[in-house]
């Protein structure tokens, strides 16, 4: 960007980049940590309401989305191995599959949310105000947590698309792939958070 860029590039430090990404992941975990805290407190206060509300969610869609995300975590991990083996074409394919999986996840989420909206169940709706308190809080948490997670999916997709472009251009190569690694780390984080959201919202009763 400016004058002394030269020495910054001279001193490429992949360890530093990875450490930076891990630290950023800590902050993301604590961001969701605040929500998990709120969830556990309200769950303790309204165990019955939370149980009844969670029955409203479709476990099938939840399972599909979990599998989709786990699969995408695998493909992005494979992409890193592929780039190390200098297989650019396979890397590009694997990144595309990952992005595609992310898209599938979002489409599923769209239908899931859309279904709730049709029944008048969305944040700020009239129906929400008449629900029992525990039900209200459960669905508020549901929309808040999955909404924030979906936002992270979108950010992750953008990161992966940038990875795709960089691999295609040749600025991510077999001896310089820390950007792809960090993108993948972020993607694993998005996956990991879902691994917690899924049982908390869909399964525990």
């Amino acid at each position, binding site marked *: 960007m400016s004058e002394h860029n030269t020495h910054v590039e001279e001193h490429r430090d992949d360890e530093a980049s990875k450490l930076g990404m891990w630290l950023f992941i800590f902050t993301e975990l604590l961001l969701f940590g605040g929500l998990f805290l709120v969830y556990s407190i309200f769950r303790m206060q309204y165990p019955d309401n939370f149980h009844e509300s969670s029955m409203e969610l479709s476990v099938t869609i939840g399972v599909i989305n979990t599998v989709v995300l786990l699969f995408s975590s695998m493909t992005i991990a494979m992409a890193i191995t592929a780039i190390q083996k200098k297989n650019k074409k396979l890397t590009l394919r694997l990144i595309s599959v990952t992005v595609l999986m992310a898209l599938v996840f979002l489409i599923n989420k769209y239908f899931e949310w859309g279904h709730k909206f049709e029944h008048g169940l969305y944040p700020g709706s009239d129906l929400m105000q008449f629900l029992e308190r525990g039900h209200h809080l459960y669905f508020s948490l549901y*929309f808040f947590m999955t909404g924030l997670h979906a936002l992270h999916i979108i950010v992750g997709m953008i990161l992966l698309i940038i990875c795709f472009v960089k691999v295609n251009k040749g600025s991510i190569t077999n001896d310089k792939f820390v950007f792809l690694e960090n993108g993948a780390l972020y993607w694993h984080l998005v996956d990991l958070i879902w691994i917690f959201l899924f049982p908390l919202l869909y399964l525990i009763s």
Partner: protein
Amino acid sequence: MNTEYISFLDHKGKYTGIRSWIFATDHKRIAFLYMYAIASFFMVGAILGLLMRFELISPGETIMKPQTYNGLFTVHGIIMIFMVVIPGLSAVFGNFFLPILIGAKDVSFPKLNLFSWWLFMIGSMLAIASQLLKSGPPDTGWTFYAPYSTTTGTNVIAATTAAFILGFSSILTGLNFIVTVHRMRAPGMKFFNMPLFPWSLYATAWIQLLATPVVGITLIMLIAERLFGIGFFNPDLGGDPVLFQHLFWIYSHPAVYIMILPAMGVITEIIPTFCQKKIYGYKAIALSSLAIAGVGFLVWGHHMYTSGMSEQARWFFSLLTFIVAVPSAIKVFNWISTMYKGSIDMKPPFVFALFFIFLFMIGGLTGLILGSVATDIQVHDTSFIVAHFHYIIFGGMGFAFFAAIHYWLPKMYGKMYNFKRAYIAAISLFVGFNLLYFPQFIIGIQGMPRRYFDYPPRFQWAQITSTIGGVILVSALILMITNLILGVRRGAKAPANPWNGSTLEWQLPSPPSVENFDEAPVVKENPYDYN
């Protein structure tokens, strides 16, 4: 490598003019960007504070309506906390001196560093806009307590979004510093070969990184509460306003240590220099920074003794609050021990450092009164609290900032300021400060609530004294800043090591070159040995 010396201020890079600053990735230029921005915000905040003092000079309405007063103390708090004291020392002096003190050429991520500054400016602009937009300045206090913050008609969303963005900027600065300390130390420099200012920045950076996201999500919840009525903090919908207070203080108490730890670091650098002695108890000071950072996460409940908590929780938080005072005291004892038998040279930075110790101790000891449950309930939400945290934040962090600028200005600009004016400014600041805040302790114990527009006439003597103190304080600030600007513009040229300092930065020319070091410095066992 080019060994010809060109200072970073004169260096010709890709850009010229203003763009060579606002697009700079050099950590020293970014430090200057922060400094100019923060100094301006500080003056705005100080003037708002002075307006409040004028309002309080007599009971009843004096110069403004109650609602304006509510807006003023909120705006004063938001500006001072989120835009001045939290970034203050680490973004200005941390940016400038962290890489130099560990023998590095820059931070690990220079572009991210610039991005943090841009985020900081965007957040600040939004915060200022929230004061001017149509529905009126937020009137919740800087703490945004629910449920009032979820129902008031003022610009709470803009203000909380601003705080969120400022928090994000703070996180990225912390992240950058942690990685820098881990990866950029000069070859051969171990953690315990680092000077103590980097140690304090390192501890601070962990707090920035781990605590800030919690307030981030809390502010988003507050925004969602206002927009959609999610009900987390609304008892009508089953939520719990006390939950907001918990989440808020889980960040905002550690944030106090974001403010004060770098201040302690600055003082730890200044005292050995002006005593011409090595710092006493190096390891104890280094580890006490980490201890403060660690224990500081677990004391948030002491803000909420009267909010409704179990008896066990209250004594637990009280105990931890007493424990967190121990490492702070360790530092104070070590500073005093360093002075013992030293050859003390009362230059302006040292005078500020002494004032810091005095004011910080008053702030710290009154903090214990607030940490113990029984006495806290007596003075909770009175002007005693206001006095206590101004002694810590202004008397502590503020005076440390002044000490730091008087200490490092010759290195940063290569110019020296006028000592006589600096002494006059320092002493008037000290006198004005005590006149302003000490009476608030007394009337606080007698029952003067904080954030009140009006008061019974028996408190007027203290309010008048405080207002006089406020006028002296602001005048002294203007004198100090004028003196510094005159020093930079027309002052004598400063030598490379005007104070005979023994840390790494004084081995460089003033101001340093863009690359700081032509070659990596030879690391010494003791960081106070480079002389």
